[in-house]
């Protein structure tokens, strides 16, 4: 996955702008944009430094109470005190949270909060219901306790440790007690369908790893009590660096990991198999109508029915992303994929299926389907034409964030939805004609899942009461008139009216096992009928239009590890709860209160003060095909909020060392910074004449720079600086044709601008779809040293990727650099993946260009050895072409080591650069090669082996008496194999 890393982009961009021989370097990356400005303050509670801003002032007391309550409980349960104060950074909404600079990686919707082990920061959005906020803070605080217990304040331990996800996240979930019935559904389903992997296999980041890990800690508590949990944690601390879980298990429980797995699986089966015996599967109730790919169902959910009831719109993943599709409600046959292909119009469709919310709506006219999409930091409403698949409207909802759960009014002129306004989630209504928006619930509760009554005068919705969702109705003519329709300590989700308006269908976990099933509340009799009784869960019921005498429900079921769509006839209810029985249940769920309710001490509020600290260091290595070693070491420092960053970069090419020190300010949308640097490199490494070994350059200077992101994908960049350089200039040729170089010192005041675009999407193996480019120009006015004139350099790097199959890609790159000023700059290229079949940096000139076309495809997913796993192994076919030209059309022949000329004249007349020999219909000074290769990923490096075959070209070689050059056809040297360690372009 491509992570937008602004700092990395800037560094690379500046290298590209300033380093003469770096035509191959490029500054890409999508933009992480600071849309909002925050005026940070700090409140010092007993154990936390809570970083907040003005708009969160009224929520501070709740956060402090929750955090201190969580600290007290977890500290006691772990029998551990933190020796440091915990920096807790809170954001009012998730969209503000996603702008944080504490991490420069993208934070998708699925990331609820995070804690990091270097500065022990907790970063949390607080726009969740109160009980969930307490659990969220507990979860992240458990991570901080883990860092304290396991890493003991040593950065080295933090960087070297590779704890499995199930252990870290399962432990955090266990101590936070944050598992919901939706979460339990996933583990229950996995157990009864028998696809739980052994504990050792769950080391990657996955939803099941969280759930599985939590279950492990539940199991340990059941077997050995709380003391057993603590013992296991402290035993694991002993083996942290070797990650020897087996040893920790053996030491804690006295038996090996195999026995642990066996007992744990028995525990899970004992817990969940009785549920399996007494319950059914969704197939027992109806027909699966999920989208299928190669005969297998793919995740399909969020149903919205067409007015005819025969088609259903849903979110599904028929390919590599979530799409909006139209299916036949009869058999699930795909009728339309409204969002097929890749787009840069938005980042993705909004879905909250795992939060029990509806995702899409179908207009009563039958022509429009509405869905929210994620675009930049907003969630505009997209309305698609159901017939053509075209996007008809997009409506940006000002000031409202994280919109979800759309519902059309019966007249099709309004859309109700859930949205976050200043941290409070309410139901809003959009008038599609006028564009007016109004808040129809206007309360402090969290509300979601609106559904209009048939007359359009009221709507049903879910309100969060305490830890539970309950169904309410609101009168749209008088929003103060709200009626609670369901009661008790269970969650009732996704209400919808029956077609006759006499029943409210909904999903509820009122089952003794907490299983979500479908229910119907008869509004006339008050009866509640249970229609399903499954092992997994059933959600989002919608009644289809009557067909004959048969009434049917379309619903989503979680079964065999995924959400699928089903249609079932509305037959006899499993059970019926009489109104009298319902009255025996508790009338109202209790509002959530944290164990400690603290009051704020105003004197503890301080403005935020910047303090620098070390961030994670970064080390990288590479190897070119001629054995040249490449390395990069980076030290990063930042303030607590990550807005101010400093970098020390050391990197080398062969024995040439480079140094760069940079400051970056990421606080605002326009980023700016300054740097000083000293680059040393070479552009010509060998000469057959022995005249020259390396022609070098040195560039020392400083720049200030800024970049403005136009959108997530595009940005403009600019820089001003001073450059002092010493470069080996080509000042002429000797009689033999050997180039004469002279080291010349110059000083410039520079100005540069650039345009960068990046829409690339990534898979594990690298980029597979999209494009990225950088166009730049740098002007430098000579202000000192030898005055050869001014500098004017143009550069272009364009790359595009086209997905062919799921894991194969066609990639194309065009890279060019032109030194057009009076002061010349030399660029070098060749070898590695720039021009295979030729030596590393074999070509140099002041105008260079090369292009690569690659077909990349999978070969072997993984090679498993008893001691390690390597892979994947991938293959590629390639065609490379490139050329380099010196000023005035001169051409340097790297193999002869001379600047090519006609030596029969006095003085010798240059034989000018010609890319193509049109007389002989072949390349002349251009070079091209084709071939194939394989690449292997090992220890984070990409190892490449390539076999190339160069195309013939016209070459000038000495004649028989060696007095002049004559053109001959240079045939290929044959198959040439190379090995190099660099990443794909």
């Amino acid at each position, binding site marked *: 996955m491509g992570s937008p890393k602004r700092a990395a982009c800037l560094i690379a961009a500046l290298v590209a702008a300033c380093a003469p021989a770096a035509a191959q370097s490029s500054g890409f990356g999508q933009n992480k944009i600071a849309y909002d400005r925050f005026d940070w303050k700090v409140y010092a509670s007993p154990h936390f430094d809570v970083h907040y801003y003005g708009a969160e002032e009224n929520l501070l007391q709740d956060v402090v109470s929750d955090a201190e309550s969580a600290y007290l409980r977890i500290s006691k349960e772990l029998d551990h005190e933190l020796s440091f104060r915990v920096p807790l950074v809170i954001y009012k909404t998730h969209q503000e949270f996603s702008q944080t600079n504490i991490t420069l990686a993208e934070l998708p919707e699925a990331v609820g909060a995070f804690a990091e082990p270097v500065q022990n920061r907790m970063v949390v959005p607080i726009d969740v219901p109160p009980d969930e906020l307490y659990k969220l803070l507990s979860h992240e605080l458990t991570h901080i306790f883990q860092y304290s217990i396991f890493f003991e304040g040593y950065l080295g331990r933090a960087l070297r440790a590779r704890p499995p996800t199930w252990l870290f996240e399962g432990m955090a979930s266990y101590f936070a007690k944050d598992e919901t019935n939706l979460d339990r559904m996933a583990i229950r389903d996995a157990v009864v369908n028998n696809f739980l992997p052994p504990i050792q296999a769950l080391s990657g980041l996955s939803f099941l790893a969280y759930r599985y890990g939590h279950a492990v800690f539940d199991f340990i508590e059941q077997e050995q009590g709380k003391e057993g949990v603590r013992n296991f944690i402290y035993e694991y601390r002993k083996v942290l660096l070797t990650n020897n879980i087996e040893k920790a298990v053996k030491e804690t429980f006295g038996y090996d990991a195999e026995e642990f797995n066996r007992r744990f699986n028995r525990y899970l089966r004992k817990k969940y198999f009785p549920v399996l015996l007494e319950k059914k599967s969704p197939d027992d109730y109806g027909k699966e109508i999920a989208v299928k790919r190669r005969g297998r169902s793919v995740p399909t959910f969020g149903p919205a029915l*067409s*007015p*005819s*009831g*025969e*088609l259903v719109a849903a979110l599904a993943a028929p390919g590599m992303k979530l799409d909006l599709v139209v299916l*036949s409600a*009869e058999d699930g*046959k795909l*009728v339309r994929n409204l969002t097929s292909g890749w787009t840069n119009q938005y980042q993705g469709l909004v879905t909250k299926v795992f939060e029990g919310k509806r995702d899409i709506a179908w207009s009563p006219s*039958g*022509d429009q389907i509405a869905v929210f999409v994620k675009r930049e930091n907003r969630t505009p409403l997209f309305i698609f*034409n159901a*017939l*053509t698949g075209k996007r008809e409207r997009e409506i940006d909802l000002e000031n409202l964030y994280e919109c979800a759960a759309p519902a059309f009014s019966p007249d099709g002129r309004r859309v109700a939805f859930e949205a976050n306004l200043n941290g409070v989630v309410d139901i809003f209504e959009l008038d599609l004609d006028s564009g007016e928006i109004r808040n129809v619930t206007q309360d402090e509760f969290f509300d979601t899942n609106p559904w209009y009554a048939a007359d359009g005068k009221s709507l049903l919705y879910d309100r969060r009461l305490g830890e539970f969702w309950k169904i309410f109705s609101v009168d749209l003519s008088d929003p103060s008139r709200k009626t609670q329709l369901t009661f008790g300590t269970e969650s009732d989700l996704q209400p919808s009216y029956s077609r006759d308006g006499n029943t409210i269908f909904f999903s509820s976990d009122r089952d003794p096992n907490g299983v979500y099933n479908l229910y119907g509340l008869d509004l006339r009799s008050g009866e509640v009928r249970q229609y399903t009784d499954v092992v997994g869960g059933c959600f989002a019921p919608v009644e289809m*239009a009557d*067909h*004959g005498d048969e009434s049917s429900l379309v619903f989503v079921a979680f079964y065999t590890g995924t959400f699928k769509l089903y249609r079932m006839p509305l037959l006899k209810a499993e059970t019926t709860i009489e109104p009298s029985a319902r009255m025996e249940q508790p009338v109202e769920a209790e509002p959530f209160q944290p164990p400690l309710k603290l009051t704020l001490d105003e004197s503890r509020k301080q403005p935020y003060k910047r303090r620098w600290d070390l961030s994670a260091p970064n080390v990288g290595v590479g190897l070119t095909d001629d054995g040249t070693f490449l390395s990069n070491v980076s030290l990063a420092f930042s303030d607590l909020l990550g807005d101010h960053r400093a970098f020390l970069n050391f990197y080398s090419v062969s024995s040439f060392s480079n140094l760069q020190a940079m400051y970056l300010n990421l606080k605002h949308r326009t980023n700016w910074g300054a740097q000083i640097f000293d680059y040393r490199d070479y552009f010509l490494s060998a000469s057959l004449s022995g005249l020259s070994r390396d022609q070098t350059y040195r560039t020392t200077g400083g720049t200030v720079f800024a970049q403005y992101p136009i959108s997530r994908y595009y940005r403009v960049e600019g820089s001003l600086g001073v450059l002092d350089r010493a470069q080996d200039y080509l000042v002429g040729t000797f009689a033999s044709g050997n180039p004469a170089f002279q080291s010349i010192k110059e000083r410039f005041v520079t100005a540069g601008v650039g345009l960068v675009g990046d829409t690339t999407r990534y898979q594990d193996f690298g980029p597979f779809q999209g494009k990225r480019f950088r166009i730049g120009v740098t002007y430098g006015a000579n202000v000192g040293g030898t005055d050869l004139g001014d500098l004017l350099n143009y550069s272009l790097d364009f790359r595009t990727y086209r997905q062919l199959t799921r894991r194969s890609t066609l990639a194309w790159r065009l890279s060019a650099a032109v030194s057009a000023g009076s002061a010349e700059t030399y660029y070098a290229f060749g070898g590695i993946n720039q021009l295979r079949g030729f030596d590393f940096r074999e070509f140099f000139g002041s105008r260079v260009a090369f292009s690569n076309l690659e077909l990349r495809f999978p070969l072997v997913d993984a090679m498993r050895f008893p001691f390690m796993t390597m892979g994947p192994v991938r293959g590629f076919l390639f065609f490379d072409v490139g050329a380099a030209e010196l000023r005035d059309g001169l051409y340097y022949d790297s193999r002869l080591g001379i600047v090519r000329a006609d030596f029969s004249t006095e003085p010798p007349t240059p034989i000018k650069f010609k890319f193509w020999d049109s007389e002989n219909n072949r390349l002349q000074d251009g070079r091209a090669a084709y071939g194939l290769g394989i690449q292997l990923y090992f220890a984070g490096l990409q190892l490449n082996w390539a076999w190339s075959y160069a195309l013939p070209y016209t070459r000038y070689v000495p004649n028989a008496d060696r007095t002049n050059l004559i053109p001959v056809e240079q045939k290929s040297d044959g198959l040439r194999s190379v090995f190099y360690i660099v990443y794909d372009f």
Partner: protein
Amino acid sequence: MGSIRGGRGRIRIGVLALLACLVGPVRAGELEQNLKFAAEMAKQGNWREAHFRWARAAEIKPDDPRILNNLAVAEEALGERQQARKTYERALAAAPRDPVVSHNLDRSVRFWNTFGGHRAETENSPPATPADPRRVRGRHTLEVSVPFPLPPRLDLANRKTLLVASFLGRENEVLDSDRELVRLLRGEFHKSATLETLDVTPPPAIPEQRLEDLVKNVSFWRHLGREWNADVVVSGAVQYDRRDVSGYQDVDYVSEATGQKVRRTMFVEQEEFDFTVTVLFFDGRTGELLYRDRLARKVLFRGLNNDPITAFYEISEGLTDDIVAVVSPRRRIDSRLIYRG
């Protein structure tokens, strides 16, 4: 001022006219989208969606014979026969010479005459073939297969149970056809689940009478119905025979030597299996005959000494559908022509 106002008025009128021109095509565009989508849905068998779209289109253009034709087909497909008939007639009234509408109406009438009503006794045969659709089909039309819903041929009101009694049958060396047929019918009636099929084994015997006498034996059927508490009693007569029909025939084959098609007269061994069943449905309470049908089928099998049981089940596959359809709704596929857009 007046002239200025007048000028503005003209401008407004001009703008309105322009808007009208713009709105017209937009509306027409929407209509076209709906019609195309409806045709696509009909082709995929999503008849309710197609009906919804054509009904909407008919609201916009109520006298368009093409839309009405398509709407009528959708109504037929959804089982609204009477409404479909009216819509076809509306389409014909709008375009009396429209060959597609005429074709569909003709085909519809024949189809429903054959399969739609309750009959006392019929020979089971497909409807007479109307005009070849290829002759009326153009590039603007599409031939679609429609699984028409057929109601049960018997009125099942207040009837819940069904008993399959023995059949009159000649036991021969081929097969105990009575027993096989009863077993087969009980299974098929059970699957259709419209009436509860009574589990009576062995099946109740019936008097050894001529078929016509058996039909008139009301007291026996009433007795049988009361004895087993059956609302409907099924019986009848079955005949299953085979005969050698080997003989000389002209046979086309491809010569291995020349690769050309060659016609040869050669002796072909084959058997004909002849299956005839007269099925009778009696009212178990009154003993009266409710429904009578005679179904017959002959099938040729290559070679001699074919397995009679395999042949029996192969032949009876289509026939039992027709028998079960007497008490169970079913679908029967026929084709219609619709306009593409």
